[in-house]
C-alpha cells in the first residue's frame, strides 16, 4: 500500500498566508501613518500660507483705509453739510407764516396793535370797533386751520372808544 503524505504542505501554506496578511497589514498601517504625517505637514504649510495672506491683506486694508481717511476730508465735509442743510431746509419759518396768515384773517373794523411770536406761540393785541367785530374776529381765527388753541383773555375799551383785546394762538 502506497503512503501518500497529504499534511506536509498544510502548515507551510497557512504560515505563508498569515505572513502575507500580516505584512499587508503592517504596510497599510505604515502607509496610513505616512499619510497622516503628510496631512499634518500639509496643514502646517497651509496654515502658514494663510497667516501670511491674512497679514498681507490686513496691511493692504490698513494702507487703503489710511489713504481713504486722509485724502477725502472735503468729500466728508460736503456730505456733512448736505445732511445738515437737508435738516435745516425742513424747518418752517413759523414767525413769518403766522404774520402772513394773520394778514388774511384780520377782519374789517379791526387791526393788530402788536404781534409777538416765540416758540410756535403767538400773542396778539387786537383793537376792534365794537364787540360784534371782536367776536367775529375771534371766530375767524378759530376757524383757521393754521392756528390752534385760540385763547381769549379779556377785552376793554381804550381811549379811542374801541375794544382792545389780547389773544393767544398756536401756529400749526
Amino acid at each position: 500500500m502506497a503512503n501518500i503524505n497529504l499534511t506536509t504542505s498544510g502548515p507551510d501554506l497557512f504560515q505563508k498566508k498569515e505572513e502575507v496578511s500580516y505584512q499587508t497589514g503592517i504596510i497599510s498601517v505604515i502607509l496610513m501613518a505616512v499619510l497622516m504625517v503628510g496631512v499634518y505637514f500639509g496643514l502646517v504649510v497651509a496654515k502658514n500660507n494663510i497667516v501670511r495672506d491674512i497679514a498681507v491683506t490686513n496691511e493692504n486694508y490698513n494702507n487703503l483705509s489710511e489713504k481713504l481717511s486722509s485724502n477725502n476730508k472735503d468729500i466728508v465735509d460736503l456730505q456733512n453739510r448736505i445732511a445738515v442743510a437737508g435738516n435745516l431746509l425742513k424747518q418752517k419759518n413759523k414767525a413769518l407764516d403766522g404774520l402772513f396768515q394773520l394778514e388774511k384773517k384780520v377782519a374789517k373794523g379791526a387791526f393788530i396793535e402788536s404781534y409777538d411770536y416765540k416758540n410756535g406761540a403767538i400773542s396778539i393785541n387786537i383793537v376792534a370797533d365794537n364787540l360784534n367785530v371782536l367776536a367775529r374776529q375771534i371766530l375767524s381765527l378759530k376757524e383757521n386751520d393754521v392756528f390752534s388753541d385760540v385763547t381769549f383773555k379779556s377785552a376793554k375799551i381804550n381811549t379811542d372808544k374801541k375794544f382792545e383785546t389780547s389773544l393767544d394762538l398756536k401756529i400749526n
Partner: protein
Amino acid sequence: MKLKLLIVPIIITLMGALLIWVLWPNYVEFQMQRKELKKSQEKLNDMQEKTKKADALKAELQGEASQKEVLRKYIPVTAEEESIIENLRTLALGEGLFIDGVSFSNSDKDTSGSTDASVVVRDAAGITASIVENGEASEPVQEASASMKKEIIVSTEVVGSYEKIKSFLQKLSNLKRFNNVVSLKISKLAATVSAPATGNLQADLAVNFVYQKEAEIVNVNNNIFTDGKFNTEVVEKLKRDLKTDVVKVEKIETGRQNPFTP
C-alpha cells in the same frame, strides 16, 4: 511573535491619538484661519470699492465746484458775524428801514459748558454788536457732523412801515445763508415829544444762524463711501428757493495816527 502581533494595534492606537490630539485641532484651526482670510479679503474688497467711489466723488467734486460753494454759503465754516451784520444792514437799507441795534448770543440749545468768548465790536454806522460764542451744540443727531453744527442767535430791532418790515423779513428768509426767525415782536412805535407818531412799527426779532466747522476726522464707514453719490437734491433746492444773495463784506482802509480821535 506576540510583540509582532501587537505592533499593528499599537500603531493604530497611536494614529488615533495623533488624529484626535494633533490633526483634528490643526484642521479646525486651519478652517478658522480660512474664514478669517475670507473675512479679511471681503473687508479689503469693500475698502477697494470705497476707494474707487471716493476717487469718483473727488472727480465729481472738482467738476462741480458750485455745489461746495452753495453749501459753504448756506452753512459757513465760521460764524462770520461781520457778514451777518453787513447783510442785515444791506437788507434794511434796501427797504429803507432803520436798524436800532444788533446783538449776538449763543443759541439756547448750545448749553454745553465750554469756555465762552465775548467780543464787542462797533461798525462805522454805530451798530454795536456783542458777540458771545459758546461750545458746540449737543443735539441728538445721528451724524457726527451734526455735532459740529453751531448756532448763534442774532437779535436786532428795525423801525419802519409794515410793508417794509414784511419785505425785509421775506428777503431775510430767502437769504442764501441759513437763518430762521425764532422770535418776532412787532408793535407800534411809541410817540414821544421829539418824535410824534408816524404810524411806523418797531420789529424786534431774534434770528438763528448756523455755521459748521470743517470735517477733521474721516470715518471710513461714512455712508458716502458706500453710496458713492452726493444728495444733489438739497443743493438744487437751495439754488432754486433762495434768491437773496449774501453780500460780501468789503475791506476798509485802515491806519490812524491817533486811533482815539473820531
